């Protein structure tokens, strides 16, 4: 069995890190601390700069300014082969001409370890990732999920303090992906290595991570635990990129006790003021479809609006009713109980609680 005691996660800190390529700024000056031993995700759409951050941490890209610190040591000037990090590539980058165990033991070979000892360690790691007895195959002879695990074992073999994962699950089908999420999470717990996981898939980020950084256009917009990111997004981008939102645009009428009252064509809505709004300003009220419900049982202070049901989608555990209220499209989720769809026809009145809604300045939302 693998000597897990040897592995120890370390903290990663970005200190004013920025990355420019010619005129293009891929990453604006960024400060970020990833705690030792946590499962940390960087979530963002493609082209937001998350892979560039990862390459800066791994040493493949030199920062234009700022420093990278691992466990308090400045590694900015070190090449990738001298950092206590290991990277799992999007393509996995398994060496096609080597056997599985040679792949796993490659880092040890590079360190000059004797062949017998390498083989022993490789076998132990293959056991950790449930690939006992597959060591003498070639990567091409394995399934997608198995190759995934070889890549993990190969990266863990060098006992890194930080494991960097660049969307490693994107090539797998849905079922396998869900299985591998659990497996990666378990490996992270067992080894205590700091995981930095890059993804554009919010589901992956939300299910696996201790904390998530949401990145947009070269800037980190929010760093928080998954539930905070989801429930209390700080920017319109985070609000709309992670999960769905119903959006109503209007003008602020008043602000009081942390709540803003916004007049919209759909009605006058109260929502938590997340932007320090002032009366008269344009604003967008956002609320999640699952916090929006038919108005029948809504409390008296709830925001209400009437809309027409355009279509109902069956999602399995719940139903999505697609609504249209004037110019705004909205949706609400109802549990898939007997007769749930019956009342959802024609014009309906929908409601949401002010504390479930947030008011931002308009603009800066995620596309789609």
């Amino acid at each position, binding site marked *: 069995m693998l000597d897990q005691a040897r592995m120890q996660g370390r903290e990663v800190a970005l200190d004013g890190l920025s990355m420019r390529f010619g005129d293009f700024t891929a990453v604006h000056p960024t400060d970020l601390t990833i705690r030792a031993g946590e499962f940390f995700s960087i979530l963002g759409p493609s082209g937001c700069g998350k892979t560039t951050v990862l390459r800066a941490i791994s040493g493949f890209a030199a920062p234009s300014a700022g420093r990278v610190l691992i466990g308090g040591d400045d590694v900015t000037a070190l090449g990738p*082969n001298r950092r206590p*990090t*290991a*990277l799992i590539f999007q393509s996995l*980058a398994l*060496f096609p001409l080597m056997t599985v165990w040679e792949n796993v033991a*490659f880092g040890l070979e*590079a360190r000059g370890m004797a062949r017998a000892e390498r083989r022993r360690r490789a076998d132990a790691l293959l056991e950790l990732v449930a690939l006992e007895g597959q060591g003498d195959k070639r990567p091409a002879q394995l399934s997608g999920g198995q190759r995934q695990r070889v890549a993990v074992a190969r990266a863990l073999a060098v006992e890194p303090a930080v494991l960097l994962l660049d969307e490693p699950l994107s090539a797998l089908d849905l079922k396998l992906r869900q299985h591998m999420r659990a497996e990666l999470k378990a490996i992270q717990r067992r080894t205590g290595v700091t995981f930095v996981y890059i993804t554009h898939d919010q589901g992956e980020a939300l299910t696996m991570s201790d904390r998530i950084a949401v990145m947009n256009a070269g800037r980190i917009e929010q760093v928080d635990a998954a539930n905070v990111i989801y429930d209390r997004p700080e920017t319109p981008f985070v609000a709309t990129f992670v999960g769905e939102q119903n959006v109503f645009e209007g003008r602020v009428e008043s602000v009081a006790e942390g709540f803003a009252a916004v007049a919209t064509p759909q009605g006058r809505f109260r929502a938590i003021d997340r932007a320090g709004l002032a009366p008269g300003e344009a604003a967008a009220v956002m609320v999640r479809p699952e916090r929006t419900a038919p108005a029948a049982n809504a409390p008296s202070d709830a925001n209400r609006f009437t809309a027409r049901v355009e279509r109902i989608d069956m999602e399995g555990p719940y139903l999505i009713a697609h609504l249209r209220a004037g110019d705004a499209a909205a949706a609400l989720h109802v549990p898939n109980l007997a007769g749930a769809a019956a009342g959802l026809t024609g014009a309906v009145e929908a409601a949401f609680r002010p504390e479930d809604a947030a008011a931002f300045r308009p603009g800066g939302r995620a596309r789609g």
Partner: protein
Amino acid sequence: MTAAADVPAPVPARAGAAAGSGGVDWAQVALNAYIVVFMLYLFLPLALMALAAFNANDTPSVTDWRGFTLDWFTGRTDEAGEVVVRGLPQETRFLEGLMRSVGIALGVIALAIPLGLAAALVLSRLGAASGSFLYTLLVSPILTPGIVLGVSTMTLWRDAFGVEAGPLTVVVAHSSFIASYCMLMFMARLQRLDPALEEAALDLGASNLFAFRRVTLPFLWPTIATASVVAFLQSFENYNTTFFAIGSSFTLVTEIGSRMRFGLSPTINAIGVLFIVLTVAAAAVWVLLRRRQG
């Protein structure tokens, strides 16, 4: 003959035009006939040359047949050991030239493969503008007439380094353009190398040298082998560049050339037969290997 007249793709069978399945595709027939004539054109001279190697006539000929003989291959001596017919064993310059040709070709492999590989690696990491300029320069020897490569190399080495023309300058002159061919082969191969592989090796703590040796080179080995064969053949068969750069020395091919100037001898036919047999055998092996793989 013009290209158009003889490019007989099958004539379209328009509705009502062709008489069903019994129609003869004259265009295809003409194309086939043309291919037969072309193959005859290619092979007949070679066949005649091969045939003359077995004619006892000491002028290479097939029309003036003086009986079958293997003397041009084996030579013939009388009881006293006096040479009666000079065959290949007596023509020691051919053997000497062959050895030198092989030596030169091996030298070309040793020089052209590293140069071509290095340049391919450099080009694979250069930006578009500077890359395409360097690329044009490095491909230019392929497009330079062989005799120009020969004289320019020979002249430079005497003027700048005091080295007289000889096998060394031939190796250099050959390598200058054969390295271009090798470079193109390596570039094609490198395009299929996932750069993440090299990065993965570095990321796992490999030194640059270790990563190159363990990841990049193994990926390139098949191409190194093919490029070596190509380099060997290109060098071995070359005449026009060699002729200008060899000085007073000689190779098998320039020796064949100087024999041809002095007059035709059936021993050259004998060499031709050996070349043909070797080529056909190599081609057969190649075909068999391909069959087995595919």
